[in-house]
Protein backbone atom coordinates (compact mmCIF):
# COMPACT_ATOMS: atom_id res chain seq x y z
CA UNK A 1 0.00 0.00 0.00
CA UNK A 2 2.82 2.32 0.99
CA UNK A 3 4.67 1.52 -2.25
CA UNK A 4 1.59 2.30 -4.32
CA UNK A 5 1.16 5.62 -2.53
CA UNK A 6 4.80 6.57 -3.20
CA UNK A 7 4.44 5.51 -6.82
CA UNK A 8 1.27 7.59 -7.26
CA UNK A 9 3.03 10.59 -5.73
CA UNK A 10 6.01 10.16 -8.04
CA UNK A 11 3.82 9.83 -11.13
CA UNK A 12 1.77 12.90 -10.10
CA UNK A 13 4.98 14.89 -9.61
CA UNK A 14 6.37 13.74 -12.96
CA UNK A 15 3.13 14.73 -14.70
CA UNK A 16 3.20 18.17 -13.04
CA UNK A 17 6.81 18.60 -14.18
CA UNK A 18 5.89 17.57 -17.72
CA UNK A 19 3.11 20.15 -17.71
CA UNK A 20 5.63 22.81 -16.61
CA UNK A 21 7.98 21.64 -19.36
CA UNK A 22 5.18 21.85 -21.89
CA UNK A 23 4.30 25.42 -20.83
CA UNK A 24 7.98 26.47 -20.91
CA UNK A 25 8.51 24.86 -24.31
CA UNK A 26 5.60 26.79 -25.80
CA UNK A 27 7.82 29.89 -25.65
CA UNK A 28 10.35 28.14 -27.86
CA UNK A 29 8.05 26.54 -30.44
CA UNK A 30 9.76 28.18 -33.48
CA UNK A 31 13.14 27.04 -32.14
CA UNK A 32 11.83 23.51 -31.61
CA UNK A 33 10.44 23.35 -35.15
CA UNK A 34 13.74 24.63 -36.51
CA UNK A 35 15.64 22.04 -34.48
CA UNK A 36 13.38 19.20 -35.64
CA UNK A 37 13.64 20.28 -39.28
CA UNK A 38 17.40 20.76 -39.06
CA UNK A 39 17.91 17.31 -37.48
CA UNK A 40 15.74 15.72 -40.18
CA UNK A 41 17.69 17.42 -42.98
CA UNK A 42 21.07 16.43 -41.53
CA UNK A 43 19.92 12.82 -41.41
CA UNK A 44 18.52 12.98 -44.92
CA UNK A 45 21.87 14.33 -46.04
CA UNK A 46 23.78 11.38 -44.58
CA UNK A 47 21.11 8.68 -44.95
CA UNK A 48 20.60 9.20 -48.68
CA UNK A 49 24.08 8.11 -49.80
CA UNK A 50 24.02 5.17 -47.35
CA UNK A 51 20.60 4.01 -48.59
CA UNK A 52 21.70 4.37 -52.22
CA UNK A 53 24.97 2.49 -51.69
CA UNK A 54 23.65 -0.37 -49.54
CA UNK A 55 22.53 -3.71 -51.02
CA UNK A 56 19.00 -3.47 -49.63
CA UNK A 57 17.46 0.01 -49.42
CA UNK A 58 14.63 -1.01 -47.10
CA UNK A 59 17.00 -2.76 -44.71
CA UNK A 60 19.28 0.30 -44.73
CA UNK A 61 16.36 2.55 -43.86
CA UNK A 62 14.96 0.36 -41.09
CA UNK A 63 18.38 -0.22 -39.54
CA UNK A 64 19.34 3.42 -39.66
CA UNK A 65 16.08 5.16 -38.68
CA UNK A 66 15.71 3.87 -35.09
CA UNK A 67 19.26 5.08 -34.41
CA UNK A 68 18.26 8.47 -35.75
CA UNK A 69 15.41 8.78 -33.22
CA UNK A 70 17.70 7.74 -30.36
CA UNK A 71 20.45 10.14 -31.45
CA UNK A 72 18.06 13.11 -31.74
CA UNK A 73 16.29 12.55 -28.43
CA UNK A 74 19.45 11.81 -26.42
CA UNK A 75 21.26 14.82 -27.88
CA UNK A 76 18.22 16.93 -26.92
CA UNK A 77 18.68 15.76 -23.33
CA UNK A 78 22.38 16.62 -23.45
CA UNK A 79 21.61 20.07 -24.84
CA UNK A 80 18.97 20.70 -22.21
CA UNK A 81 21.40 20.18 -19.35
CA UNK A 82 23.78 22.82 -20.66
CA UNK A 83 20.82 25.04 -21.54
CA UNK A 84 19.60 24.79 -17.94
CA UNK A 85 23.02 25.31 -16.37
CA UNK A 86 24.17 28.01 -18.76
CA UNK A 87 21.38 30.07 -20.35
CA UNK A 88 18.90 29.69 -17.52
CA UNK A 89 21.55 30.78 -15.00
CA UNK A 90 22.06 33.93 -17.08
CA UNK A 91 18.33 34.56 -17.40
CA UNK A 92 17.54 33.85 -13.74
CA UNK A 93 15.16 30.95 -14.50
CA UNK A 94 17.64 28.59 -12.84
CA UNK A 95 17.18 30.45 -9.53
CA UNK A 96 13.40 30.17 -9.82
CA UNK A 97 13.74 26.41 -10.22
CA UNK A 98 16.10 26.19 -7.24
CA UNK A 99 13.73 28.19 -5.06
CA UNK A 100 11.06 25.54 -5.73
CA UNK A 101 13.51 22.74 -4.86
CA UNK A 102 13.95 21.68 -8.48
CA UNK A 103 17.20 20.80 -10.23
CA UNK A 104 18.56 19.52 -13.54
CA UNK A 105 16.88 16.13 -13.15
CA UNK A 106 13.48 17.79 -12.78
CA UNK A 107 14.12 19.97 -15.80
CA UNK A 108 15.03 16.90 -17.84
CA UNK A 109 11.88 15.05 -16.70
CA UNK A 110 9.86 18.16 -17.56
CA UNK A 111 11.12 18.14 -21.14
CA UNK A 112 11.53 14.48 -22.01
CA UNK A 113 8.11 13.85 -23.57
CA UNK A 114 8.23 17.12 -25.48
CA UNK A 115 11.64 16.12 -26.86
CA UNK A 116 10.39 12.72 -27.98
CA UNK A 117 7.05 13.73 -29.46
CA UNK A 118 7.66 17.28 -30.68
CA UNK A 119 11.30 17.07 -31.81
CA UNK A 120 12.27 13.40 -32.15
CA UNK A 121 9.18 11.88 -33.80
CA UNK A 122 8.59 14.65 -36.39
CA UNK A 123 12.29 14.59 -37.37
CA UNK A 124 12.10 10.81 -37.59
CA UNK A 125 8.99 10.83 -39.76
CA UNK A 126 10.10 13.72 -41.95
CA UNK A 127 13.53 12.29 -42.72
CA UNK A 128 11.99 8.84 -43.26
CA UNK A 129 9.42 10.21 -45.70
CA UNK A 130 12.05 12.17 -47.66
CA UNK A 131 14.29 9.10 -47.93
CA UNK A 132 11.30 6.91 -48.87
CA UNK A 133 10.51 9.35 -51.67
CA UNK A 134 14.17 9.25 -52.71
CA UNK A 135 14.42 5.50 -52.77
CA UNK A 136 10.93 4.83 -54.11
CA UNK A 137 9.98 2.56 -51.18
CA UNK A 138 6.48 2.32 -49.73
CA UNK A 139 5.62 4.47 -46.65
CA UNK A 140 3.98 1.41 -45.05
CA UNK A 141 7.54 0.29 -44.24
CA UNK A 142 7.44 2.75 -41.34
CA UNK A 143 4.71 0.83 -39.50
CA UNK A 144 6.44 -1.27 -36.81
CA UNK A 145 5.89 -5.05 -36.91
CA UNK A 146 5.75 -5.10 -33.12
CA UNK A 147 4.07 -2.09 -31.52
CA UNK A 148 4.96 -3.44 -28.04
CA UNK A 149 8.68 -3.38 -28.82
CA UNK A 150 8.37 0.13 -30.24
CA UNK A 151 6.61 1.38 -27.08
CA UNK A 152 9.22 -0.41 -24.94
CA UNK A 153 11.90 1.31 -26.99
CA UNK A 154 10.28 4.70 -26.37
CA UNK A 155 10.11 3.98 -22.64
CA UNK A 156 13.80 3.03 -22.65
CA UNK A 157 14.51 6.21 -24.59
CA UNK A 158 12.97 8.28 -21.76
CA UNK A 159 15.42 6.72 -19.29
CA UNK A 160 18.43 7.18 -21.60
CA UNK A 161 17.48 10.80 -22.35
CA UNK A 162 17.51 11.62 -18.64
CA UNK A 163 20.69 9.58 -17.98
CA UNK A 164 22.74 11.32 -20.68
CA UNK A 165 21.36 14.69 -19.65
CA UNK A 166 22.55 14.00 -16.11
CA UNK A 167 25.99 12.84 -17.31
CA UNK A 168 26.44 16.15 -19.13
CA UNK A 169 25.09 18.05 -16.11
CA UNK A 170 27.67 16.32 -13.88
CA UNK A 171 30.50 17.03 -16.33
CA UNK A 172 29.39 20.65 -16.59
CA UNK A 173 29.09 21.11 -12.83
CA UNK A 174 32.18 19.25 -11.66
CA UNK A 175 34.63 20.15 -14.42
CA UNK A 176 35.49 23.16 -16.54
CA UNK A 177 35.10 21.19 -19.77
CA UNK A 178 34.33 23.48 -22.69
CA UNK A 179 31.26 23.04 -24.84
CA UNK A 180 33.50 21.63 -27.56
CA UNK A 181 34.24 18.51 -25.49
CA UNK A 182 30.59 18.16 -24.71
CA UNK A 183 29.99 18.39 -28.46
CA UNK A 184 32.50 15.54 -28.95
CA UNK A 185 30.65 13.46 -26.38
CA UNK A 186 27.42 14.17 -28.22
CA UNK A 187 29.00 13.05 -31.50
CA UNK A 188 30.24 9.85 -29.83
CA UNK A 189 26.77 9.11 -28.44
CA UNK A 190 25.20 9.82 -31.86
CA UNK A 191 27.62 7.41 -33.59
CA UNK A 192 26.96 4.72 -30.94
CA UNK A 193 23.20 5.16 -31.40
CA UNK A 194 23.53 4.36 -35.09
CA UNK A 195 25.78 1.32 -34.72
CA UNK A 196 24.14 -2.09 -34.40
CA UNK A 197 25.26 -4.33 -31.54
CA UNK A 198 26.90 -6.66 -34.10
CA UNK A 199 29.38 -3.87 -34.95
CA UNK A 200 30.88 -4.02 -31.43
CA UNK A 201 33.67 -6.45 -30.50
CA UNK A 202 31.30 -8.35 -28.18
CA UNK A 203 27.52 -8.40 -27.71
CA UNK A 204 27.89 -7.49 -24.02
CA UNK A 205 29.90 -4.38 -24.91
CA UNK A 206 27.19 -3.33 -27.35
CA UNK A 207 24.35 -3.96 -24.93
CA UNK A 208 26.18 -2.19 -22.08
CA UNK A 209 25.80 1.10 -23.93
CA UNK A 210 22.29 2.42 -23.16
CA UNK A 211 21.87 4.15 -26.55
CA UNK A 212 22.84 1.03 -28.51
CA UNK A 213 20.42 -1.05 -26.47
CA UNK A 214 17.55 1.41 -27.03
CA UNK A 215 18.22 1.46 -30.77
CA UNK A 216 18.37 -2.33 -30.90
CA UNK A 217 14.97 -2.58 -29.18
CA UNK A 218 13.53 -0.13 -31.71
CA UNK A 219 15.09 -2.20 -34.49
CA UNK A 220 13.43 -5.27 -33.00
CA UNK A 221 10.11 -3.49 -33.58
CA UNK A 222 10.95 -3.48 -37.30
CA UNK A 223 12.58 -6.91 -37.33
CA UNK A 224 16.08 -5.62 -38.19
CA UNK A 225 17.64 -6.37 -34.78
CA UNK A 226 21.00 -8.13 -34.65
CA UNK A 227 20.45 -9.54 -31.13
CA UNK A 228 17.46 -11.84 -30.40
CA UNK A 229 14.63 -10.39 -28.28
CA UNK A 230 15.01 -13.06 -25.57
CA UNK A 231 18.41 -11.47 -24.79
CA UNK A 232 17.27 -7.89 -25.38
CA UNK A 233 14.42 -7.88 -22.85
CA UNK A 234 16.39 -9.08 -19.78
CA UNK A 235 19.23 -6.75 -20.85
CA UNK A 236 16.75 -3.86 -20.94
CA UNK A 237 15.44 -4.67 -17.44
CA UNK A 238 18.96 -4.81 -16.03
CA UNK A 239 20.21 -1.79 -17.92
CA UNK A 240 17.07 0.22 -17.04
CA UNK A 241 17.55 -0.44 -13.31
CA UNK A 242 21.25 0.49 -13.52
CA UNK A 243 20.47 3.64 -15.50
CA UNK A 244 17.82 4.81 -13.01
CA UNK A 245 20.21 4.19 -10.09
CA UNK A 246 23.06 6.02 -11.86
CA UNK A 247 20.78 8.94 -12.74
CA UNK A 248 19.60 9.26 -9.15
CA UNK A 249 23.16 9.11 -7.83
CA UNK A 250 24.35 11.76 -10.27
CA UNK A 251 21.35 13.94 -9.40
CA UNK A 252 22.23 13.78 -5.69
CA UNK A 253 25.92 14.52 -6.36
CA UNK A 254 25.04 17.40 -8.66
CA UNK A 255 22.57 18.92 -6.22
CA UNK A 256 25.04 18.69 -3.34
CA UNK A 257 27.74 20.35 -5.43
CA UNK A 258 25.44 23.14 -6.63
CA UNK A 259 24.13 23.76 -3.09
CA UNK A 260 27.73 24.08 -1.84
CA UNK A 261 29.35 26.05 -4.63
CA UNK A 262 26.59 27.28 -6.94
CA UNK A 263 26.87 27.31 -10.73
CA UNK A 264 29.48 29.64 -12.26
CA UNK A 265 28.25 31.91 -15.02
CA UNK A 266 29.76 30.67 -18.29
CA UNK A 267 29.47 32.33 -21.70
Amino acid at each position, binding site marked *: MMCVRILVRLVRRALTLMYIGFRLSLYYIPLMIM*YALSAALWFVFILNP*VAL*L*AKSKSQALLTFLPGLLTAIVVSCGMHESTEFLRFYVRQGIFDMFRECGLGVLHYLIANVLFDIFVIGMPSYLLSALIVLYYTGLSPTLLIPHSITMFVLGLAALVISHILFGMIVACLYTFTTLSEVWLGMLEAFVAVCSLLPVSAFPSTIAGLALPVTLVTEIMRAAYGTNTVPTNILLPALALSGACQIAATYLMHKLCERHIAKRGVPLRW
Partner: protein
Amino acid sequence: MRLLQALLYREITILKKRFPEIITLWIFSILFGLFVIYGPSVLLNTSVEHVVDRLSMLFGKKLSLEDALTLMFTLSAVISMTTMTMSDFAQQIVDDKFSGAIDHVLLSTTLVRYYISYAIALSIVTTPVATIYLVPLLYLVKGLGGVLIYAYLLPVFLLSCILLSLYASSIIVPLAYLTKIQRLWILPSIIVPMLLAGSGVFIPLTIVPLFLKLLAYTSPLPETCTILQDMLLRAAGKLALPLTLLTMLMVLYVLLYSGTAKIAEARARTQGAALT
Protein backbone atom coordinates in the same frame (compact mmCIF):
# COMPACT_ATOMS: atom_id res chain seq x y z
CA MET B 1 42.27 47.91 -48.74
CA ARG B 2 42.69 49.10 -45.13
CA LEU B 3 39.18 47.92 -44.36
CA LEU B 4 40.06 44.50 -45.74
CA GLN B 5 43.28 44.42 -43.69
CA ALA B 6 41.40 45.35 -40.52
CA LEU B 7 38.76 42.70 -41.15
CA LEU B 8 41.41 40.08 -41.88
CA TYR B 9 43.13 40.93 -38.60
CA ARG B 10 39.82 40.63 -36.73
CA GLU B 11 39.01 37.29 -38.37
CA ILE B 12 42.39 35.79 -37.50
CA THR B 13 42.04 36.97 -33.89
CA ILE B 14 38.56 35.46 -33.58
CA LEU B 15 39.72 32.26 -35.24
CA LYS B 16 42.39 31.57 -32.61
CA LYS B 17 39.70 31.54 -29.92
CA ARG B 18 37.48 29.21 -31.92
CA PHE B 19 40.12 26.61 -32.68
CA PRO B 20 38.61 23.76 -30.58
CA GLU B 21 35.26 24.34 -32.30
CA ILE B 22 36.99 24.07 -35.69
CA ILE B 23 38.59 20.76 -34.71
CA THR B 24 35.12 19.39 -33.86
CA LEU B 25 33.92 20.48 -37.29
CA TRP B 26 36.84 18.68 -38.96
CA ILE B 27 36.04 15.50 -37.03
CA PHE B 28 32.38 15.71 -38.05
CA SER B 29 33.30 16.20 -41.71
CA ILE B 30 35.76 13.29 -41.69
CA LEU B 31 33.16 11.06 -40.01
CA PHE B 32 30.58 11.99 -42.65
CA GLY B 33 33.04 11.15 -45.46
CA LEU B 34 34.03 7.84 -43.87
CA PHE B 35 30.45 6.93 -43.07
CA VAL B 36 29.37 7.05 -46.70
CA ILE B 37 31.86 4.31 -47.59
CA TYR B 38 32.11 2.28 -44.39
CA GLY B 39 28.58 2.97 -43.02
CA PRO B 40 26.82 0.40 -45.23
CA SER B 41 29.41 -2.26 -44.39
CA VAL B 42 29.26 -1.64 -40.62
CA LEU B 43 25.49 -1.26 -40.45
CA LEU B 44 24.28 -3.62 -43.11
CA ASN B 45 27.03 -6.15 -43.82
CA THR B 46 27.42 -4.74 -47.32
CA SER B 47 30.99 -5.23 -48.51
CA VAL B 48 33.17 -2.16 -49.13
CA GLU B 49 33.75 -3.46 -52.68
CA HIS B 50 30.01 -3.36 -53.30
CA VAL B 51 29.84 0.24 -52.02
CA VAL B 52 32.74 1.26 -54.28
CA ASP B 53 31.08 -0.49 -57.25
CA ARG B 54 27.80 1.33 -56.57
CA LEU B 55 29.69 4.63 -56.33
CA SER B 56 31.41 3.89 -59.65
CA MET B 57 28.00 3.22 -61.18
CA LEU B 58 26.52 6.46 -59.76
CA PHE B 59 29.40 8.63 -60.97
CA GLY B 60 29.82 6.75 -64.26
CA LYS B 61 33.52 6.05 -63.76
CA LYS B 62 35.39 3.01 -62.46
CA LEU B 63 36.76 3.89 -59.01
CA SER B 64 39.20 2.13 -56.72
CA LEU B 65 38.84 2.30 -52.91
CA GLU B 66 41.55 5.02 -52.85
CA ASP B 67 39.68 7.05 -55.47
CA ALA B 68 36.42 6.68 -53.56
CA LEU B 69 38.05 7.74 -50.29
CA THR B 70 39.72 10.73 -51.99
CA LEU B 71 36.38 11.76 -53.48
CA MET B 72 34.46 11.43 -50.20
CA PHE B 73 37.08 13.16 -48.07
CA THR B 74 37.36 16.06 -50.52
CA LEU B 75 33.60 16.45 -50.74
CA SER B 76 33.34 16.32 -46.94
CA ALA B 77 35.26 19.63 -46.86
CA VAL B 78 32.14 21.23 -48.37
CA ILE B 79 30.39 20.52 -45.04
CA SER B 80 32.98 22.26 -42.86
CA MET B 81 33.36 25.14 -45.30
CA THR B 82 29.60 25.78 -45.61
CA THR B 83 28.94 25.46 -41.88
CA MET B 84 31.79 27.81 -40.95
CA THR B 85 30.98 30.43 -43.58
CA MET B 86 27.24 30.59 -42.98
CA SER B 87 27.38 30.53 -39.18
CA ASP B 88 30.26 33.02 -38.97
CA PHE B 89 28.50 35.42 -41.29
CA ALA B 90 25.21 35.24 -39.41
CA GLN B 91 26.94 35.56 -36.04
CA GLN B 92 28.96 38.57 -37.18
CA ILE B 93 25.93 40.40 -38.53
CA VAL B 94 23.99 39.74 -35.32
CA ASP B 95 26.96 40.90 -33.20
CA ASP B 96 27.45 44.02 -35.33
CA LYS B 97 23.81 44.95 -35.12
CA PHE B 98 22.95 44.16 -31.53
CA SER B 99 26.19 45.44 -30.00
CA GLY B 100 25.80 48.69 -31.93
CA ALA B 101 29.24 48.22 -33.56
CA ILE B 102 27.73 48.86 -36.97
CA ASP B 103 27.03 52.50 -36.00
CA HIS B 104 30.80 52.98 -35.56
CA VAL B 105 31.49 51.15 -38.83
CA LEU B 106 29.10 53.47 -40.66
CA LEU B 107 31.14 56.49 -39.52
CA SER B 108 34.01 55.43 -41.77
CA THR B 109 32.53 53.28 -44.56
CA THR B 110 29.30 52.11 -46.17
CA LEU B 111 27.34 48.99 -45.36
CA VAL B 112 27.80 47.66 -48.91
CA ARG B 113 31.58 47.99 -48.77
CA TYR B 114 31.82 46.73 -45.21
CA TYR B 115 30.04 43.43 -45.77
CA ILE B 116 31.59 42.78 -49.19
CA SER B 117 35.03 43.29 -47.63
CA TYR B 118 33.94 41.07 -44.77
CA ALA B 119 32.83 38.36 -47.22
CA ILE B 120 36.27 38.44 -48.88
CA ALA B 121 38.18 38.51 -45.56
CA LEU B 122 36.06 35.68 -44.16
CA SER B 123 36.61 33.57 -47.28
CA ILE B 124 40.39 34.15 -47.28
CA VAL B 125 40.62 32.98 -43.67
CA THR B 126 37.91 30.31 -43.66
CA THR B 127 38.84 28.43 -46.85
CA PRO B 128 42.24 27.13 -45.73
CA VAL B 129 41.12 26.64 -42.12
CA ALA B 130 38.00 24.68 -43.02
CA THR B 131 39.76 22.46 -45.56
CA ILE B 132 43.32 22.07 -44.22
CA TYR B 133 42.51 18.69 -42.61
CA LEU B 134 42.39 17.32 -46.15
CA VAL B 135 46.17 17.60 -46.50
CA PRO B 136 47.10 14.79 -44.06
CA LEU B 137 44.04 12.76 -45.06
CA LEU B 138 44.71 12.89 -48.79
CA TYR B 139 48.41 12.27 -48.12
CA LEU B 140 47.46 9.10 -46.24
CA VAL B 141 45.25 7.93 -49.09
CA LYS B 142 47.20 9.02 -52.16
CA GLY B 143 50.65 10.06 -50.93
CA LEU B 144 52.13 13.25 -52.40
CA GLY B 145 49.58 13.10 -55.20
CA GLY B 146 46.89 13.72 -52.59
CA VAL B 147 48.59 16.94 -51.47
CA LEU B 148 48.73 18.06 -55.10
CA ILE B 149 45.00 17.34 -55.46
CA TYR B 150 44.36 19.62 -52.48
CA ALA B 151 46.47 22.41 -54.01
CA TYR B 152 44.61 21.96 -57.29
CA LEU B 153 41.19 22.17 -55.61
CA LEU B 154 41.95 25.03 -53.21
CA PRO B 155 40.99 27.79 -55.72
CA VAL B 156 37.59 26.08 -56.20
CA PHE B 157 37.04 26.06 -52.44
CA LEU B 158 38.06 29.73 -52.25
CA LEU B 159 35.73 30.75 -55.07
CA SER B 160 32.92 28.77 -53.52
CA CYS B 161 33.55 30.31 -50.10
CA ILE B 162 33.44 33.85 -51.52
CA LEU B 163 30.18 33.03 -53.27
CA LEU B 164 28.74 31.47 -50.13
CA SER B 165 29.64 34.59 -48.13
CA LEU B 166 27.96 36.78 -50.74
CA TYR B 167 24.96 34.46 -50.68
CA ALA B 168 24.83 34.75 -46.88
CA SER B 169 25.10 38.53 -47.08
CA SER B 170 22.28 38.77 -49.61
CA ILE B 171 20.00 36.80 -47.26
CA ILE B 172 21.09 37.78 -43.76
CA VAL B 173 21.78 41.53 -44.19
CA PRO B 174 18.21 42.35 -45.33
CA LEU B 175 16.77 40.07 -42.65
CA ALA B 176 18.88 41.71 -39.96
CA TYR B 177 18.38 45.32 -40.97
CA LEU B 178 14.97 45.39 -42.65
CA THR B 179 12.98 43.01 -40.41
CA LYS B 180 12.51 42.63 -36.68
CA ILE B 181 13.69 39.00 -36.48
CA GLN B 182 15.67 38.61 -33.23
CA ARG B 183 17.06 35.09 -33.39
CA LEU B 184 18.97 35.37 -36.63
CA TRP B 185 21.84 33.26 -35.32
CA ILE B 186 19.64 30.13 -35.63
CA LEU B 187 19.12 30.70 -39.34
CA PRO B 188 22.32 28.87 -40.44
CA SER B 189 21.29 25.80 -38.41
CA ILE B 190 18.42 25.30 -40.84
CA ILE B 191 19.93 26.74 -44.04
CA VAL B 192 23.14 24.68 -43.89
CA PRO B 193 21.54 21.17 -43.77
CA MET B 194 18.93 22.30 -46.30
CA LEU B 195 21.64 23.38 -48.76
CA LEU B 196 23.76 20.29 -48.14
CA ALA B 197 20.82 17.88 -48.51
CA GLY B 198 19.76 19.66 -51.70
CA SER B 199 23.24 19.69 -53.20
CA GLY B 200 23.80 15.96 -52.93
CA VAL B 201 27.48 16.51 -52.02
CA PHE B 202 28.38 12.78 -51.83
CA ILE B 203 26.10 11.73 -54.69
CA PRO B 204 25.55 13.16 -58.18
CA LEU B 205 23.16 16.11 -58.23
CA THR B 206 20.95 14.40 -60.82
CA ILE B 207 19.75 11.85 -58.22
CA VAL B 208 18.63 14.50 -55.69
CA PRO B 209 14.83 15.04 -55.78
CA LEU B 210 13.66 18.37 -57.18
CA PHE B 211 11.94 19.59 -53.98
CA LEU B 212 15.27 19.34 -52.13
CA LYS B 213 17.22 20.86 -55.01
CA LEU B 214 15.00 23.94 -55.34
CA LEU B 215 16.41 25.88 -52.40
CA ALA B 216 19.93 24.57 -52.94
CA TYR B 217 19.90 25.95 -56.49
CA THR B 218 19.74 29.51 -55.09
CA SER B 219 23.17 28.88 -53.54
CA PRO B 220 26.51 28.13 -55.20
CA LEU B 221 26.77 24.72 -53.49
CA PRO B 222 25.27 22.43 -56.18
CA GLU B 223 27.61 23.87 -58.81
CA THR B 224 30.58 23.71 -56.44
CA CYS B 225 29.91 20.03 -55.75
CA THR B 226 29.54 19.35 -59.48
CA ILE B 227 32.86 21.09 -60.18
CA LEU B 228 34.64 19.19 -57.40
CA GLN B 229 33.20 15.86 -58.53
CA ASP B 230 34.11 16.57 -62.17
CA MET B 231 37.64 17.71 -61.31
CA LEU B 232 38.28 14.66 -59.13
CA LEU B 233 36.88 12.30 -61.74
CA ARG B 234 39.08 13.99 -64.35
CA ALA B 235 36.38 15.34 -66.59
CA ALA B 236 37.64 18.92 -66.64
CA GLY B 237 36.00 19.57 -70.02
CA LYS B 238 32.60 19.68 -68.34
CA LEU B 239 33.52 22.63 -66.10
CA ALA B 240 32.42 25.44 -68.42
CA LEU B 241 28.70 25.28 -67.58
CA PRO B 242 28.99 25.20 -63.76
CA LEU B 243 31.63 27.96 -63.84
CA THR B 244 29.36 30.15 -65.99
CA LEU B 245 26.48 29.52 -63.58
CA LEU B 246 28.68 30.42 -60.62
CA THR B 247 29.68 33.71 -62.27
CA MET B 248 26.04 34.51 -62.93
CA LEU B 249 25.17 33.72 -59.33
CA MET B 250 27.96 35.98 -58.10
CA VAL B 251 26.60 38.91 -60.12
CA LEU B 252 23.11 38.18 -58.83
CA TYR B 253 24.19 38.08 -55.19
CA VAL B 254 26.18 41.31 -55.47
CA LEU B 255 23.23 43.07 -57.13
CA LEU B 256 20.76 41.74 -54.58
CA TYR B 257 23.00 42.52 -51.66
CA SER B 258 23.94 46.03 -52.89
CA GLY B 259 20.28 46.96 -53.42
CA THR B 260 19.07 45.77 -50.01
CA ALA B 261 22.18 46.98 -48.17
CA LYS B 262 21.65 50.53 -49.49
CA ILE B 263 18.08 50.58 -48.14
CA ALA B 264 19.30 49.05 -44.86
CA GLU B 265 22.05 51.63 -44.59
CA ALA B 266 19.69 54.53 -45.18
CA ARG B 267 17.47 53.17 -42.41
CA ALA B 268 20.40 52.50 -40.09
CA ARG B 269 21.78 56.02 -40.57
CA THR B 270 18.47 57.68 -39.77
CA GLN B 271 17.24 55.39 -36.97
CA GLY B 272 20.45 53.79 -35.65
CA ALA B 273 21.23 50.18 -36.56
CA ALA B 274 20.70 48.75 -33.09
CA LEU B 275 17.14 50.04 -33.02
CA THR B 276 16.00 49.03 -36.50
